[in-house]
Structure formats: structure tokens, C-alpha cells
């Protein structure tokens, strides 16, 4: 019964979304304020209905209701509670419902928090958002219904893919979708601005908080996914240039560009066309990612077994929205006045530099991800484009961008003083290079590229600190603390986010210094990894709630004595009879010892992959710091959600262009 309520609520939400997609636009065209003002209420109603729908599916999972096909295929009575709950989105249909839930969430959030928007802007934005929601709800209801019943309910489910039975599943997809789908609202704002002909600084102020929210979530979501892959898959890698990872990286790159270009648009009324274009492109790339993951056209470790009908449906949605928005853009591009021209050496010049590099990097990822598809369609040849391609394209394109960050954040608006900015930065750079040279002479060198990477990372971190230091000591040291605390939050946010980039670069560079050992170990045998020694005490078996495990008991010692017991394991899950590796890790500061076992041979022998990974945690702490910077910027009073009144007064009310 509850399942049917969920199904019904979804259908109702679809009907509401159609209403919300059409009526406000009709109202805006007819200058009928009453119709336009229906949009926020419809958005809230739609969100409530999707919540009911989502809650009913969750309920079916929690109660292991195997009469629901989706629950049968992806759950098991023995599964721990947290995985019953997060298993709701551990499959195609459920994750699509989460998609729709987040679409509706952003619609409702705008309805609630952007009350001070002009009515028509709010109405049309919510209408566009609802068009997207309607398309995806139709997709759910007609091709991927999670509420389908089975005629003969089985007693036991087929269980969730064991790789997904991890707390990571509870965090990674919701965050990633919050980011991915969050850009939908930015897209909706852009479409509304184009429809109403209001592409101005006020638009930049309106979308900035939403862009930030989506960007923060996407940053954390990608970082979380990378961390999860690192500890779950047992290869010790953190990024594989897998098409699905690329699908999330592309909107991140353009979304980051958007975040920066919107600042220029807001402060200088420049880059207007470009900013709108970025908003459209970013969400288009999110849609493209959804298509790639769910249509089965790409080979990926994130495989969804999907039928072609679904792929075609998403392709249709993709073409509809991307085509529609670009057509709208082409219609309106002439009407948008180009912004003011500015000096290349200035804050806005630096932000253009940032945008260019982020965009061409996104282009490189785009080509690398889609070229295999194109080539196969044209010639039938099957190729794979992997890490070597991206290491030669996207990675080198990031380097000049990273080098420019400390310089760019020092330049003033309008007319920057490059010599002045560099006069302090030479010291920062010297400090970074000096530190690296000093360390390299102690640890007797290392790969030159990695050392350069460490220097770059230090330059970024120190450059960010110097930015704050310089502001706090402007006019002497005596008022250091009052000045430090008086630095506007958005400047502190910028420094933190850029320092986060530096930390990430440090972490990635440090992987060149890791120690790896792949050996077969016998009980009682001791091996060394880096400065640690590792003894295998023995192999034991262990029974978990829904799996049986073979556990290798290792003792880890450093120069002084025992530091940890590490128990990497190999699990076989009862439901699917599928083996997985459980790695064991020992953290020392920001570094880790990482163990994964392979197969046993001869009863007391086990294949072991052991790593010492120096400063590896920085790879994910960097993005976390970036996200903290984003949150701080979001809390800046001057950028609060909703348009400041000043902007509103400058705008004609309720008169759409044309």
C-alpha cells in the first residue's frame, strides 16, 4: 500500500511539474502576476510530493519488501540497516529518484529563499526548473519505475553489489547529485534571464549563492568518491580517468570557471554573455554525464546495465535542453550588450585567464571522453583513452593556471600592478623553492616533476597565507589582529580555497614518493615497506552479517616498536557470492600505510599489496579546504541569497522584453 502511495505521489508530482513548467511562463507572457506567483507554491508542493515518493521507496527498503522488483534486485534481509537505507540510491531507478528529489529540492529552496527576486524572474526560473523535473519524472515513470511490483514475491533479495556496501554510498552519491543537479537551478536562472532579457550584474548576484552551493557539493562529492575508490577498490589509486569520473569533472571545471566569471560580471558588468554560456554549458555537461553513465555507451567501472530505451530517452532529454538553451542563447546573444573592455593585467584579466584554462581543460576532458564514441561510430575502431591522454592534456593545462593563482589574487580590479604583486611573491616563491631544495637534499632527491609539484603546492599555500598576511599588515604590524579579523570573509574564503588547491597539489605530488611492494607472504614472515616492517601473524576466517571473510593478521612496526595491528581481508558476500577486498590502513599524520590482500595459496600464504603513501590525505583535505572556503564565501553577508534591494530598484518591474 505504501509503495502505491509513493508511485501515486510521483505521478502527482509529475502533473504538478507540468503545471509549474507552463503556467508561470504563460503568466509572464500575458503579464498576469497572479499566474506567475503560483510558481513558488507549485515548487513547494512538487517537492513535498517527491519527498513522499522517496520516503515510500525508502520504507520498502527498510522493511525489505521484496514484492517490489527494485528492492528484490538490490537488497537483502541480512544487509545492515545503513546499507538498506543507502541502497535506495545504489541502483539505477532509485538514484534517478534521488536525482528528481534534488531537482525538486533546489526548486523549493529558490521558492523559499529567493522571495526578493522580481516575481517574473522567480516564476520563469521555477518554470524552467520544473521543465527539467518533468522530463526526468517522465523518464522515471515510463522507463525506470522503481515502484514496480513482482507477481510472486521471493523470500530473499539479490543483495546490493558488495562494493557499494560501504558508508561511502551514504555520502558520495547524495553529495555528487547535490552538485550535479544543483547546477540545474543556475541553468534555470540563466534561461530565465535570457527569456526575460535581463542579463545584468543583478543576475550574477542572484546565481552566485546557488552556484556556490552546487560547487561546494560537487567538490566534496568528487573528493569523497575519489577517497572511497582509494580505500574500497584496493588498488591504492585515487583517480582513474574513468569516463564516469570525467563526467563529474567536466561540470566541476566549467562550474569553477562560472564561479569566477560571475564575480567579474557582478563587479564589472563584463563577461555577461560568457557567464550565461558557462551556466548553460555546466548543466549541459551534468546532463551529458547522466547520459553517459546510464545509457551504457561507455565502458566504465561505474557500469549500469541499462537497456537502449532508457539511453534514447535520456539522449532525447539531453538534446531538448541543450538544444533549447543554445537556441535561446543564439536568439538573445545579439541583444546582450558586450561588456566593458578591460586591461589584461587586472583582477578581471586574471579571472579571464582562469576561465580560459579551466575551459580548455574541460574541453580536453570532453574530447578524451567522447572521442572513443565518435571514432567507433565513424570507423568501428575501438579505442580507449586513459590516463596517458589526460596526463598530457588536462594536467599540463592546469599547471599554468595554478602558477597564476597567487599572482591573480593579488591584482587589483581595473588596473593591476604586476610588478607590485610580484615584488612580494618572489619571496614566497623563493621560500617554496628553497624549502623543496632543502628537503630534497635531506631525502636525497626524487623525481624532478614531483619536486616541482611540491614547490608549486607550497607556492599556492604560502601565496594564500601571504595574501592574508599582507592585508593584515597593511600600514604596519601594530594593528595586526584587528586588521586580520577585519578582512572581508570573501577574501578569507578565496585564500582558503586557493590554499586548498595547493594542499591537493602537494598530496598528488607526494604520490611520486610512495613505496609499493607486491609480494607473497607466509605466516611468520616479515617484510619492509618504507620505514615500517610488517609481520604476518596468520590467517583467520570471520563471519560478518552478510558475508564470510578471510582475514590476514599483520603487525606493523616502526623503528621503535609495534604501532598497529592491520587486518586486510577478502570478503565473499552471501547474497551474490561475490568477492571483495577490504583494505587495512594505518594513518601516521597525513601519511598512510595501506594493505590489500589477494588470493591465498597453500593455506598460510597470501598475496599482499603494501604501500607507504606519504601525505596522501592531502589529496582529499585540499578539496575539503576548498569547500570550506566556498562555505565561508556563502556566509558573506554581502552575497546572501536574494538580490540586494539596490539591484532590484534599478530594474523595471514585470515587463519582459518583447
Amino acid at each position, binding site marked *: 500500500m505504501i509503495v502505491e502511495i509513493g508511485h501515486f505521489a510521483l505521478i502527482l508530482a509529475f502533473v504538478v511539474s507540468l503545471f509549474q513548467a507552463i503556467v508561470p511562463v504563460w503568466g509572464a507572457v500575458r503579464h498576469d502576476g497572479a499566474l506567475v506567483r503560483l510558481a513558488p507554491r507549485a515548487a513547494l508542493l512538487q517537492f513535498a510530493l517527491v519527498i513522499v515518493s522517496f520516503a515510500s521507496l525508502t520504507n520498502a527498503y527498510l522493511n525489505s519488501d521484496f514484492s517490489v522488483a527494485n528492492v528484490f*534486485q538490490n537488497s537483502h534481509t541480512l544487509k545492515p540497516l545503513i546499507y538498506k537505507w543507502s541502497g535506495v540510491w*545504489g*541502483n*539505477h531507478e532509485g*538514484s534517478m529518484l*534521488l536525482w528528481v528529489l534534488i531537482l525538486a529540492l533546489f526548486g523549493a529552496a529558490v521558492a523559499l529563499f529567493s522571495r526578493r527576486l522580481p516575481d517574473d524572474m522567480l516564476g520563469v526560473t521555477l518554470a524552467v526548473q520544473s521543465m527539467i523535473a518533468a522530463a526526468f519524472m517522465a523518464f522515471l515513470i515510463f522507463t525506470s519505475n522503481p515502484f514496480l511490483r513482482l507477481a510472486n514475491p521471493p523470500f530473499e533479495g539479490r543483495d546490493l*553489489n558488495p562494493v557499494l556496501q560501504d558508508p561511502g554510498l551514504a555520502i*558520495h*552519491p547524495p553529495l*555528487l*547529485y547535490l552538485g550535479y543537479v544543483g547546477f540545474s537551478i543556475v541553468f534555470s536562472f540563466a534561461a530565465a534571464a535570457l527569456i526575460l532579457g535581463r542579463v545584468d550584474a543583478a543576475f550574477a548576484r542572484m546565481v552566485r549563492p546557488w552556484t556556490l552551493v552546487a560547487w561546494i557539493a560537487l567538490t566534496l562529492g568528487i573528493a569523497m568518491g575519489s577517497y572511497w575508490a582509494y580505500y574500497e*577498490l*584496493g*588498488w591504492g589509486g585515487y583517480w582513474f580517468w574513468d569516463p564516469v569520473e570525467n563526467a563529474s569533472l567536466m561540470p566541476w571545471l566549467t562550474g569553477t570557471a562560472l564561479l569566477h566569471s560571475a564575480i567579474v560580471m557582478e563587479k564589472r558588468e563584463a563577461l555577461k554573455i560568457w557567464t550565461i554560456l558557462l551556466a548553460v554549458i555546466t548543466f549541459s555537461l551534468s546532463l551529458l554525464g547522466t547520459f553517459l553513465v546510464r545509457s*551504457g555507451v*561507455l*565502458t566504465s*567501472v*561505474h*557500469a*549500469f*546495465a541499462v*537497456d537502449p530505451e532508457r539511453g534514447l530517452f535520456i539522449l532525447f532529454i539531453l538534446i531538448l535542453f541543450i538544444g533549447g538553451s543554445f537556441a535561446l542563447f543564439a536568439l538573445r546573444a545579439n541583444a546582450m550588450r558586450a561588456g566593458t*573592455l*578591460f*586591461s*589584461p593585467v587586472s583582477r578581471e584579466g586574471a579571472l*579571464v585567464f582562469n576561465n*580560459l584554462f579551466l575551459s*580548455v*581543460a574541460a*574541453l*580536453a576532458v570532453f*574530447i*578524451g571522453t567522447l*572521442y572513443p564514441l565518435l571514432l567507433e561510430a565513424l570507423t568501428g*575502431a*575501438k*579505442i*580507449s*583513452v*586513459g590516463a*596517458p*591522454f589526460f596526463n*598530457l*592534456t588536462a594536467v599540463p*593545462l592546469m599547471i599554468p593556471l595554478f602558477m597564476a593563482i597567487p599572482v591573480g589574487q593579488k591584482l587589483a580590479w581595473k588596473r593591476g600592478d604586476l610588478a607590485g604583486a610580484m615584488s612580494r611573491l618572489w619571496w614566497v616563491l623563493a621560500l617554496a623553492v628553497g624549502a623543496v631544495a632543502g628537503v630534497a637534499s635531506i631525502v636525497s632527491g626524487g623525481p624532478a616533476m614531483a619536486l616541482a609539484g611540491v614547490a608549486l603546492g607550497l607556492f599556492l599555500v604560502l601565496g594564500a597565507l601571504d595574501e592574508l598576511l599582507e592585508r593584515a599588515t597593511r600600514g604596519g604590524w601594530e594593528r595586526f589582529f584587528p586588521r586580520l579579523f577585519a578582512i572581508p570573509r570573501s577574501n578569507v574564503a578565496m585564500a582558503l580555497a586557493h590554499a586548498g588547491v595547493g594542499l591537493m597539489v602537494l598530496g598528488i605530488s607526494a604520490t611520486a614518493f610512495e613505496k609499493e611492494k*607486491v*609480494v*607473497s607472504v607466509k605466516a611468520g614472515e616479515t617484510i619492509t615497506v618504507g620505514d615500517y616492517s610488517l609481520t604476518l601473524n596468520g590467517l583467520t576466517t570471520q563471519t560478518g552479517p552478510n558475508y564470510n571473510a578471510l582475514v590476514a593478521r599483520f603487525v606493523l612496526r616502526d623503528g621503535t616498536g609495534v604501532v598497529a595491528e592491520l587486518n586486510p581481508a*577478502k570478503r565473499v558476500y552471501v547474497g551474490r557470492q*561475490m*568477492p*571483495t*577486498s577490504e583494505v587495512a590502513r594505518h594513518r601516521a599524520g597525513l601519511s598512510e600505510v595501506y594493505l*590489500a590482500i*589477494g588470493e591465498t*595459496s597453500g593455506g598460510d600464504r597470501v*598475496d599482499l*599489496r603494501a604501500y607507504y603513501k606519504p601525505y596522501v590525505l592531502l589529496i582529499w583535505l585540499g578539496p575539503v579546504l576548498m569547500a570550506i572556503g566556498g562555505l565561508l564565501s556563502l556566509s558573506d553577508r554581502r552575497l546572501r541569497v536574494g538580490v540586494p534591494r539596490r539591484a532590484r530598484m534599478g530594474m523595471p518591474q514585470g515587463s519582459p522584453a518583447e
Partner: protein
Amino acid sequence: MTRKQKRLAIIGGIGAIIALAMGLILTALRDKIVFFRSPTEVAEGKVRPGDSFRLGGLVLTGSVRKEEGQRVFFTVTDGAKEVKVQYTGLLPDLFREGQGVVTEGKLDGAGTFTATNVLAKHDENYMPREVADTLKKQGHWREDKPGGAKP
């Protein structure tokens, strides 16, 4: 700087960056892509020894042999032809006889494929698309039950 100079500097800079990016992308497309080959294509001589490529198919049942030092030998088949593969290292969890596999490496003069990488999958029902296509081509494809997977 005059208006004209500014405009020139900006357009020139943008052009240079885009040219740099396109140069990198085209170079990488020429040198850094890896072709996917089936055992039949290898037998037809489409691959020269020393070329890096991906070999995909099924792990021939009964062909997996392990040696000291984590060396593994197995045979990849597409039903028609077979290629012997050697690999050193840990195999992915889902590596099994009779299952689909994708390996990356090079062919030596004797026709043995030395893999540097054996690719893992998230899902036991999942068949790499290239492998599925290869098997279909050779008439060894059986429609499998659809499986759920990963967001």
C-alpha cells in the same frame, strides 16, 4: 595601453592558449590512445609486436596458472581464437575463469601478451561492452540477466 592594444593583447592571449590546448589534445590523440583488440584480430595480425593495446575476451576455463612471485598465466579467448597472457601482480577480485576480462599490455615476438594491467569491474554481472561485442561477433553471446550497479 590603448584600446586597440588591449584588445589585441586579449585576443592574442586567448588565441595562444587555445592553440596550445588544441596542440596538446591532437598530440595526445595521436600518441596516447590505446586500441581494443579481440583475440581474432590479434590472430589476423592487426597488432604488431611491441604496440600497446587492450586485449579483451573471456578467461579460458582451466587456463589460469599461478607461479612464484605472483606471476599469473592465463588465456583470453573470444571463442574463435586464443591469446596467451602473462601478468605479474594481484588480480582484481572479480577475475575468474569463464568471465570477461580486459587486459592492457603488449605482444611479444612469440605471440604472448604481457599485461601491465588487468582491469577490474564493480559488478559481477557487468560485461565490458567491447568484450560483449566481440563475443556477439563470434556467436558466443548469451543474454544475461540484467544487473543493477553503481550510481
